[in-house]
């Protein structure tokens, strides 16, 4: 009771600082007297079931309430950006897909798109449709898994298992199409690796129906569950004023009522030919973000159906390239972006006219979400809710420590 009162007093007005008095480092300004015996310091991670991936949070607790949170990353650092500077462009494809494990195709697409822009390559029309299909399929698989993960982080583990199974049905399709379940390397410069197998669309449709059914069940079991509601409503509220200073994008920004979607704002591939509207929310808490993610799975399913219906049935899928092992890409720099499940993902690529990239910088959405934002958002919350908060921000460590 006592802790609850302290919590209420000290966090009053902190969740929604007014725009005029907005201070980006308000949690840093609290000086805590660690020798007072009131506080406990603990490490949450790097090996912890409630942490997304391998990262650690250094928490200062007062009872169960978090008073200070510092993110520590580096447990998963493989130096992707440095590795790419020492490899030929084509050799970078097995590296880029590892930057986000559940959603690798966005990385492949962006690296290929940046390269095509620097080398002035126009890809065939059908390849664009197949790429979009691939991106939406992987988005569906990723968001389904995150919805399950969100349920799991609040103790509804069964939903997590259903979601992982349904992601696996999608992985079966990827395996059929590309030979790989998790990493596909299907999107290559100049188009895609090869044609879709016969009857692929029908098999995609079957999986989509399964996922739709799952989402209907999840709506009943998860979103009306009293425990889930009690724990997620009002947790991790992001004020719309925070969106721009922290560079928040994707579902997290849309849940705050800001309709930013790269697919709509800066249409790439064939998104300008598809009919969809960004889904926005108002509450901007963990519940709202989970709800939006579920809605976006259904939106992606509708998009996949549109793509399969409108896609040209014939045509080349790959442009002929020069010998990729001696391919000198003209010098220049560019930035390409796409909407990933977590938000805006972008590649800043610099070429100096040689066979090797000069610099590849990966801009992932979780970079700012997990580092700057989470440190502020965790303060004042219960330590038991931290796992749900992290899943809700979709922190993905490999994207932070490229």
């Amino acid at each position, binding site marked *: 009771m006592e802790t609850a009162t302290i919590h209420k007093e000290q966090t009053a007005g902190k969740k929604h600082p007014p725009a005029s008095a907005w201070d980006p480092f308000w949690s840093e300004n609290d000086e805590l007297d660690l020798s007072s015996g009131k506080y406990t310091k603990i490490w949450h991670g790097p090996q912890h079931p409630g942490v997304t991936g391998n990262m650690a949070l250094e928490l200062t607790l007062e009872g169960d309430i978090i008073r200070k949170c510092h993110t520590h*990353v580096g447990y998963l650092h493989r*130096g992707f950006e440095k590795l790419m500077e020492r490899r030929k462009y084509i050799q970078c494809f097995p590296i880029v897909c590892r930057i986000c494990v559940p959603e690798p195709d966005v990385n492949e697409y962006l690296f290929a798109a940046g390269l095509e822009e620097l080398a002035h390559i126009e890809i065939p029309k059908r390849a664009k449709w197949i790429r979009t299909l691939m991106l939406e399929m992987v988005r569906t698989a990723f968001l389904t898994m995150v919805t399950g993960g969100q349920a799991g982080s609040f103790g509804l583990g069964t939903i997590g298992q259903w979601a992982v199974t349904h992601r696996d049905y999608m992985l079966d399709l990827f395996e059929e199409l590309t030979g790989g379940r998790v990493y596909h390397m299907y999107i290559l410069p100049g188009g895609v690796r090869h044609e879709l197998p016969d009857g692929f669309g029908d098999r995609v449709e079957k999986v989509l129906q399964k996922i739709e059914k799952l989402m209907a069940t999840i709506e009943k079991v998860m979103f009306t569950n009293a425990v889930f509601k009690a724990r997620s409503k009002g947790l991790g509220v992001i004020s719309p004023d925070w969106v721009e200073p922290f*560079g928040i994008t994707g579902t997290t920004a849309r849940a705050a009522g800001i309709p930013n979607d790269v697919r709509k704002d800066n249409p790439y591939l064939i998104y300008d030919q598809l009919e969809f509207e960004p889904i926005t929310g108002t509450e901007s808490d963990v519940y709202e973000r989970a709800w939006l993610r579920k809605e976006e799975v259904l939106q992606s399913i509708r998009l996949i159906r549109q793509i399969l219906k409108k896609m040209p049935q014939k045509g080349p899928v790959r442009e002929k390239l020069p010998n990729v092992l001696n391919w000198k890409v003209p010098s220049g720099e560019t930035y390409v972006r796409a909407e990933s499940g977590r938000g805006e993902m972008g590649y800043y690529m610099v070429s100096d006219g040689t066979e090797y990239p000069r610099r590849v910088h990966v801009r992932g959405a979780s970079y700012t979400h997990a580092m700057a934002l989470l440190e502020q958002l965790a303060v004042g919350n219960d330590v038991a809710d931290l796992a749900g908060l992290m899943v809700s921000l979709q922190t993905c460590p490999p994207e932070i420590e490229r």
Partner: protein
Amino acid sequence: MDDLIKRIETKFTILDKKHQRDDLVFLTMEKSHVVDVLTCLRDTEGFRHLVMISAVDYIEYDVFQLTYLVHSYERHVDLGICLNVDRNNPVMDSIHHLWAGAQVYQREIKEMYGIDFPESPRVDEPMILEGWDDIPPLRRDFDTKKYAEETFFPREGRKTHDPRKVMEEQLYPHESKVKYEIKRLVRGNRNHS
């Protein structure tokens, strides 16, 4: 976009312009103007989303190029503001007061390139490389191969394949066969003579 660049040109000197796409332009500016340009873009031109801050090491010109990429949600265009920082005195003004998210980028650049951003919060704390005592690893003069050979040891019975050779054999089997045959003959002759 052209109007916007003209407006910037009236206030600040633009050293170089690169029109990459209709919605993406890179401008190279003086180092001392950059924070003012970014403040102006954010407050008056609607570029309120800081997409990323990145650095490129141009060791041959003895400079680091810093790129600040800003995006406008109203016009849906990007502007890259580039500047050169002297490699021997790598210091740049911090912009954490403009965007709270910038502190993370600055902390990473400090660690990976050694470019200092005084007054940026926690900029001296290690982010990814705890206990690193070598030169900043994303600099061009950091030798990854040498580092790997010194730090890790070869394991008995482990084979390594040159990825380039494997790819050549798979993608261009005939060319690769001819190439390696010629190499073998030339080397054979060289050794013979």
